[in-house]
């Protein structure tokens, strides 16, 4: 069965600092991986997605993620965090291009001004 682990329930960074949110997946076969963001009282919005190909994927608002098959990871990065990035971030895995997503438990990002 597919699964996703986000080991950090909460991450705090200073505005302007760099960010990495961790995601480890378990999937037997070729995974399709996603990062979604949830702003307060809103639904989930897609940040970026990985389909087999270039392991580094660029997303919206300066986010990027890197797929590593050897580490079973898909970590999210941003070079300089803005206060508006304060949100909950979810990593998800699918085996069929996104028809059925399995989500991690999410990481709350807090931004210190």
């Amino acid at each position, binding site marked *: 069965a597919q699964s996703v682990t986000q080991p950090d*329930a909460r991450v705090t960074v200073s505005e302007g600092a760099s960010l990495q949110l961790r995601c480890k997946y378990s999937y037997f076969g070729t995974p399709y991986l*996603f990062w979604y963001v949830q702003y307060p009282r809103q639904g*989930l*919005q*897609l940040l970026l997605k990985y389909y087999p190909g270039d392991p580094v994927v660029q997303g919206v608002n300066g986010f990027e993620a890197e797929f590593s098959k050897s580490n079973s990871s898909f970590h999210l990065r941003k070079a300089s965090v803005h206060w508006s990035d304060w949100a909950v971030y979810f990593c998800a895995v699918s085996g069929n291009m*996104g028809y*059925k997503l399995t*989500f991690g*438990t999410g990481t709350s990002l807090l931004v210190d001004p």
Partner: protein
Amino acid sequence: DMKVTQMPRYLIKRMGENVLLECGQDMSHETMYWYRQDPGLGLQLIYISYDVDSNSEGDIPKGYRVSRKKREHFSLILDSAKTNQTSVYFCASRPNRGRDTQYFGPGTRLLVL
């Protein structure tokens, strides 16, 4: 602009009452989903609908049923609601073509007393 809508946004019911949550999308997407989101658990898939009258159980279907009579509408029904069904419910939709992803609605907060 692609949009998934959910009604109502907030709902309070007593245990044993019936609950109807509505979801609509204006993108003619074939596939639609119902999830629930609970603290520390991420999103859990309740049901998938691949098109009109073509529904499939997700990971936690017990206590729920769905109805899809038109492509643009997908309903979640709780017959005799229970207190442990208090949650935030999200609807999503996805086209059946290519490498697209799921689009989420804003959510419905349900409190069962």
